């Protein structure tokens, strides 16, 4: 098997440059690449375009990069709950492109499947459609949306092997699979890194061919945004 293992997050992200575009997995704070984000903050790389469903919170997730003003542009579907984000956006320091959540997922999937663009009904008749091609198929209108073209994808999986195969847990799968498939260079951090042969080939969510670097992360905080309990 082809060995994708690198030592740690620092090594995995060492060639990220100012101005690069990154796909960052996760939904809210669930399944975010915590170690990669910490390493990006430490490296201090700037002018990044970050594609991520959300933008973290003030003191966790992508919020940590926003706090350091490393992000030039966010492409997200929902960016609430982040005061520093709001400040930078209103002051014009930060550019934000809001796109429907399905469109975000499909533009990643398209990249991972070698499709140049896909048609989606989401956004028809709204400001999202402005400047985009609308096409009717069998009586229904669709927007043409292009595949993402991102240099890096950073995803967080539950288990992985050194061949790059990934398995996700519960709803932390979210955008991580399609982003892993979409990156030109895909970096995966996993809670548990095992040898080839230890994962059931039938249960793999992302085949290793899509993953270029993999490492076992540490100190996962897995912060919960809205802990809600039944009484």
């Amino acid at each position: 098997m082809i060995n994708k293992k690198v030592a740690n997050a620092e090594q995995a992200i060492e060639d990220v440059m100012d101005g690069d575009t990154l796909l960052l997995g996760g939904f809210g704070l669930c399944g975010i690449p915590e170690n990669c984000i910490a390493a990006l903050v430490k490296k201090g790389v700037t002018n990044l375009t970050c594609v991520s469903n959300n933008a973290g919170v003030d003191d966790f997730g992508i919020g940590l990069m926003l706090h350091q003003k490393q992000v030039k542009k966010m492409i997200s579907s929902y960016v609430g709950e982040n005061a520093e984000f709001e400040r930078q956006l209103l002051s014009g320091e930060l550019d934000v492109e809001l796109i429907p959540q399905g469109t975000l997922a499909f533009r990643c999937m398209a990249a991972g499947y070698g499709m140049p663009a896909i048609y989606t009904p989401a956004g028809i008749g709204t400001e999202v459609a402005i400047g985009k091609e609308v096409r009717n198929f069998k009586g229904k209108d669709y927007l043409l949306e292009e595949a993402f073209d991102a240099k890096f994808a950073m995803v967080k999986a539950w288990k992985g092997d050194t061949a790059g195969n990934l398995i996700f847990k519960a709803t932390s799968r979210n955008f991580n699979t399609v982003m892993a498939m979409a990156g030109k260079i895909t970096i995966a951090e996993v809670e548990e890194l095992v040898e080839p042969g230890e994962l059931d080939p039938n249960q793999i969510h992302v085949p290793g061919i899509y993953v270029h670097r993999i490492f076992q992360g540490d100190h996962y905080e897995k912060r919960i945004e809205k802990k809600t309990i039944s009484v």
Partner: protein
Amino acid sequence: MLDKEGIAKRIAQEIQNNSYVNLGIGIPTLVANYIPKDIHVCFQSENGLLGMGPFPKESEVDPDLINAGKQTITMLPGAALFDSAMSFGMIHAQKIDLTILGAMEVSEMGDIANWKIPGKMVKGMGGAMDLVASAKNIIVAMQHVNKAGESKLLPTCSLPLTGIQCVKKIVTELAVLSVLPEGGFKLLERAPGVSVETIKKATLGKLIIEGEIPEMAFD
């Protein structure tokens, strides 16, 4: 006049046996509490889960298991997990039978605005534009008028749209209304103690009233 729980309770009556349902944030979330025992329903959470269960006990909390509102949740037996692409795939392929969501405005053509208020910080549309663009059946749960006392059932929406010609039914604190394919809000039911006159005053869009309008019935 209904409170939020009342709106949720009334909407729960709309849920058919053996259906797949997506509940939006806010009042729609409460609907799950009022599903009759003999109705089989499977809730989808668009971040990648079918078969969403109740909130967990303290000991069951799992940071890797949340719903689209980012709340910790549980899974029921028979649940299935998937990624965001498949999740919106099944939404776009109209596999979800019913979508229930909140709104700021609904037009008499069934257009909906629920994501953006010009001049205010925009948080984003999340999955709402996908849901309204694809759903077979959309029920809106909302207050009939906004905090300024203005009707939210309008001839045309004034706020930026989330989707067009998609809302099928509306349940408010005052009434149940269907949106007719040719346009117009058809009054179906009054909330307990609410007069047709009150509903008329609170509805700016075209209101269609035919015959006697019954009061909502609750078990």
